[in-house]
């Protein structure tokens, strides 16, 4: 039986495998190869493309800025998202469903649309500036757009659900009897949170935070629109290298760096998540 089933089911997988190898694995493989080869002929292994990247101040600045924005966005998402998830956990069922729906809702709406709205909200004549001016808090409009602040606000807004949803799900899985046990043993509310609840929710928080970090690191649309070309991140630099300067080798090397950072972080988040599931 197994001997006859084996080829048939492999046959079902092959057409898609063929497509994915040709239009995904192979292009990425060729790009990786291009990053470590001289154009030739004949092509020879070299690290000069990486060397050129790391010796050019512009790319180092872009990498540094991407890292900084990703880090700030991750911290902002954690600080906004953790208390939100904790609050949602304690809501009565119907309100909980509503809160989850509101968190999921933006997930479904084009990032373009969500980013666009921030131009309306944060612009010089936007909602926030009008409010600040009317309240007399500032004398002149504050520049939120076309700088790192705008990019971080927009990115945080887009990526927050990626942290909140898994975190909330993990918090629901924490056995309430553990908290009751701690309370009945005389621990104060705060102690129960600090010594029991928070450590139990920490792996999910870490995994969610790493996910946000990965996503910000490769972010393209929001920095392009809210940064107005003045806050290029790695992905925007790739756009310039490919679509403006046609420097494929440099683009391949920068993409490889981005891919390695992403895969290392992804492996890390899987490892952290698995630890949380077993403990």
């Amino acid at each position, binding site marked *: 039986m197994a001997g006859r*089933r*084996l080829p048939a*089911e492999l046959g*079902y*997988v092959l*057409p*898609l*495998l063929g*497509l*994915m*190898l040709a*239009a*995904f694995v192979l*292009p*990425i493989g*060729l*790009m990786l190869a291009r990053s470590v080869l001289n154009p030739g002929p004949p092509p020879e292994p070299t690290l000069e493309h990486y060397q050129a990247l790391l010796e050019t101040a512009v790319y180092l600045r872009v990498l540094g800025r991407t890292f900084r924005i990703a880090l700030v966005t991750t911290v902002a998402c954690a600080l*906004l*998202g953790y*208390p939100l998830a904790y*609050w*949602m956990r304690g809501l009565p069922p119907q309100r909980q469903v509503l*809160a989850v729906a*509101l*968190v999921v809702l*933006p997930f*479904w*709406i*084009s*990032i*373009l*649309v*969500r980013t*666009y*709205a921030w*131009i*309306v*909200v944060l612009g010089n*004549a*936007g909602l926030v500036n009008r409010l600040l001016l009317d309240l007399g808090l500032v004398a002149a409009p504050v520049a939120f757009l076309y700088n790192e602040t705008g990019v971080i606000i927009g990115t945080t*807004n887009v990526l*927050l*659900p990626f942290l909140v949803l*898994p975190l909330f*799900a993990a918090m629901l899985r924490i056995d309430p009897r553990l908290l009751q046990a701690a309370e009945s043993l005389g621990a104060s509310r705060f102690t129960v949170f600090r010594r029991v609840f928070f450590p139990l929710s920490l792996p999910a928080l870490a995994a969610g935070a790493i996910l946000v970090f990965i996503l910000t690191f490769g972010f*393209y*649309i929001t920095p*392009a*629109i809210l940064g107005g070309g003045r806050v290029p991140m*790695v*992905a925007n630099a*790739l*756009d310039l290298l490919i*679509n403006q300067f046609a420097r*494929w080798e440099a683009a*391949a090397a920068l*993409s490889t760096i*981005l891919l390695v950072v*992403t895969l290392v972080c*992804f492996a890390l988040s899987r490892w952290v998540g698995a630890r949380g599931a077993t403990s």
Partner: protein
Amino acid sequence: MTRRLLALHGVLVLAFLCLPIAVVIPMSFSSASSLEFPPPGLSLRWYDSFFGDARWVAALVNSALVALASSTAALLLGGIAAYGLVRGTFRGRPLIEGIFIAPLVVPSVIVAVALYIAFAQAGLLGTMPGLVVAHTVLGVPYVVLVMSVAIRSFDPRIEQVALSLGASTATMVRRVLLPNLLPSVFAAWIFAFITSFDEVIVTHFIAGRFDTVPKRMFNELVLQVNPTITAIATLLIAVSFVAIALILWLLRRGGVRLAALT
């Protein structure tokens, strides 16, 4: 006290999350050509300027065609492959599954650069087939995930009964398997459709002069602020809402709980 602060924080963060939607929809009905909020008056002029502009309509047609073709291809290839992955016992399944899910993990911009270089050499840049292939690859993970869950929850003994009663494989698939999986099939198809319909980055790199709605929106947004975008944005929100409602309804009918997908 702590509890009230927590509730205040919760409500404010939820408001922050939903603010973009709350702003864009009223703006799209504004009568002003500036980005005034709240709008000074109501009108449908931005919807007129969308549907009255041949370039936008052409982009909409392109978007719909590419999304239709790529989601159907992803559904056919992905659905059959998911069946092979779930029911098969051959070696290397985790690796193959990893390859199918990988486009979800790899940043879009990397796929965009890799495909740009590959397509440039294959002469597929700026062509409809190239775009459809790229969007199919991006839709595959969703189809494989949704269909794997659905097939795993369908008892293989029912298939075996049909086969042992003399049905051919094709008849079994048509009369037994598909009717039971239909809701998930539609849900997977919609996921892939929306993925393509919303795609910006890969399209921006490889589509050349070929326009889709998100690509045109992106280019307009980078250059200038044009209220027509709010009308398109609202239409896209409406499409998303209909799609989510359909997916939830279909998955529930199919007995698949959304939690099983994550």
